[in-house]
């Protein structure tokens, strides 16, 4: 009796297992560069892995996707008037609370953006593993919002144009930003949730930076270049902060070389429960 029942079960499992539908699709879209001077890019990516890097000079933008067509819909809309493009992957149907499946996390996107146009970049990520290489672009503004994501942003090369603002909003995320010194951003903003954030201000830039940080209950690490003068104004509660290399005056902390360097960083930090660390780099 037991054996037939077992075999019936195995048979059912095998037969139905092969009947599983395959809904993964490959999608790509690109636009050649036809002399445009600026591009406002909005990226909205719900779940999966995403990579972003500079494109060839002949390309204005390119998106390559592998996605689950049952649950997601690729987005690529270009508005010629104003040179605005929206790229990404949005959920199909109404908004609902969903735990991404393994297949959705297997989704991937690769985006390449022109290095010869003034670029405004506004990216929103859901449950995403993201690596963004923004070095070598002409980035004028950057806004990055992340949900339950792991995001690494790099400015491996110097930004080709001064950047007004780089703002980051990290939820339950792990966010690491390397080489903000190369970004040439005059203002850096961070709203951190309960995740871990690392901001690395090293790089070859000479632009003074104002940094506004609000961190709720996560872990914040600031990597500061030794050659730059730093002033930190901190409003904190329930946080112990005794950074090395700083002199304290009230709620303000000054690096030893503050006021005597070509480049300076002014940090305003508000936090309640966040762990705060400062590292010195070159």
């Amino acid at each position, binding site marked *: 009796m037991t054996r037939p029942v077992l*075999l019936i079960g195995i048979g059912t499992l095998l*037969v139905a*297992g092969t*009947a599983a*539908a395959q809904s993964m699709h490959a999608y790509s879209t*690109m*636009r050649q560069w*036809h002399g445009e001077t600026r591009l406002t890019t909005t990226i909205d990516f719900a779940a999966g892995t995403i990579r972003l890097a500079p494109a060839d000079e002949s390309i204005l933008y390119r998106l390559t996707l592998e996605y689950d067509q*049952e649950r997601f819909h690729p987005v690529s809309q270009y508005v010629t008037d104003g040179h605005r493009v929206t790229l990404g992957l949005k959920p199909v149907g109404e908004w609902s609370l969903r735990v991404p499946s393994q297949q959705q996390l297997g989704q991937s996107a690769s985006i390449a953006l022109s290095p010869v146009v003034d670029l405004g970049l506004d990216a929103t990520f859901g449950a995403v593993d993201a690596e963004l290489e923004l070095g070598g672009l002409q980035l004028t503004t950057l806004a990055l919002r992340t949900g339950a994501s792991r995001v690494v942003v790099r400015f491996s090369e110097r930004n080709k144009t001064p950047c007004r603002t780089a703002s980051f909003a990290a939820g339950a995320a792990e966010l690491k930003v390397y080489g903000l010194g190369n970004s040439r951003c005059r203002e850096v903003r961070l709203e951190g949730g309960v995740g871990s954030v690392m901001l690395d201000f090293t790089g070859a830039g000479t632009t003074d930076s104002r940094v506004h940080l609000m961190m709720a209950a996560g872990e914040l690490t600031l990597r500061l270049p030794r050659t730059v003068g730093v002033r930190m104004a901190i409003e904190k509660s329930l946080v112990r902060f005794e950074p090395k290399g700083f002199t304290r005056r009230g709620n303000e902390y000054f690096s030893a070389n503050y006021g005597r360097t070509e480049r300076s960083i002014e940090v305003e930090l508000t936090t309640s429960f966040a762990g705060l660390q400062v590292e010195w780099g070159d």
Partner: protein
Amino acid sequence: MRSHNYVALALLPSLLLAGPSFGHDRVGEDSRAFELIRSLFRRAPFPLAHTHRATFAPGHTTLVLHLDNNSELRLTLADGRLFIDDDPVGVYLPGGGLEAAWHDLVAEAARLPTPAVVHLLQTWSPDSVPQGEARTAKSVREAAESVDAPVFTTSRPQLLDPAGPGGFTIDVGDLTDPVSLEPLLRQAARLASAALRVSVPEGTAYLGDFSVGSGEVVEGHFLVLKGTADMYGSLRGNLVTVDGDVVMHPGAIVTGDVLAYNGQVVALGGEVTGEIRTLSPLGSPAAAVAPDVQTLSPLVLALRRAAGLAGVFFTLGVIGFGMVIFARHNLEVVSDTVSNSFGRSFLVGLIGQLLVLPTFGMLVVGLILSVVGVLLLPFAVIVFGLLAVLAVLVGFLAVAHAMGETYTRRRMALGATIGSPNSYRYLLIGLGAVSTIWLAWVVFGWVPVAGQVIQAAAILMTWLLGTVGFGAALLSRAGAREQFSGRLLPPEAMTDEYLWATPQYGVSAIKRPAAKPPKSDS
């Protein structure tokens, strides 16, 4: 002989489940069922070669197949050796028969479509070559056999006549959302033949290879089915290929958008002022698009759901057996709580569900407000989550246990001989009973309206049982609070043996030794 019976039994579910779908199109459904069974024994799909490149250079001749998993298969003959992906795997005599045959093959590959090249490689067997070179050729064949090719059937180039009013129409004037266009393109690919009539508003449909010559200027949108679009001249409109590539040659201009469905856009030069898009299903041969959920047959749908149900049953069974082995006492106490206090368990379970999130919030806030608590927060969150899941799981299994126990005891009370009435049996019977509710949905879930009603009923019943189990687990503190299950009866009356083996009524009950009266203090 017996084993054949078992195999037949193993396939029985598929035949039984096929029942509802057999009807007006018996032959089609039969072949689909056999295709399904055949798919059991089919090998895993190999990567598809979508393009290839042939290279002649001093000292080496190379053929590269570009695969859809972003890798490539590189076959090179150089310096008397065959390299596959840069690994030496065979030898040949420079200037010999194998090298000459390889040169012929690569030259042929330069003008053939990729599927034909894959086929050439898979059947490549040069004549009159020494044994060592024959082994090298075999290595090439074996490497090529690990690759599939799209089964494009390039048709004789021809213009397709437009369909009549209300006929098959594909509007390729707006390509901003190719996904919404995909069903139509897929349909067109399936129907593609010289007899197909399809209308393209402000455009033209072609079957087979299509080209715009150098210096030529054409107007309107073009839909090319099962063919490559070679662009040398100018097109003022959109261009769409289905099961074929778009090749932009130097000097070509397309002033609209380009879409290759199930194909590639090969940019050798030229200019596209609009968007260049590609879209294709992954993991299936290019011409055979897998059905999506909405178009699954009732048989396949039922089989998928049956597999899911079997998986859940198996998983719960394994967890339940583990509990019987390692925490039998707790399981039995929760199970007794379900049996003896069903209504209270349900109420407690209901209230517990409502209070889970507020409790969690209070816990988090409480911990955050204390310095030590902040450190404990991550652990507390994990532990809270685990406890909640554990309570639901243990409760649900306890309900199954209680159902099985009740059923077994009743049968025994009616005189049935049960081989071994134990917790394993109770669990299996209980889980089987719960699965039966869902089995109805598995079999009849495809029926319009009734399917949804059955599904709703199954969800409701499962939620009810889960709530009762959750409540029982809370009441009995996951089986640690033993006395609860006996709160309405004296402790000795709570044993299974007492309740089920001791007659409560009739002659036997009268002859039963009377319980000792409680001692009076006076």
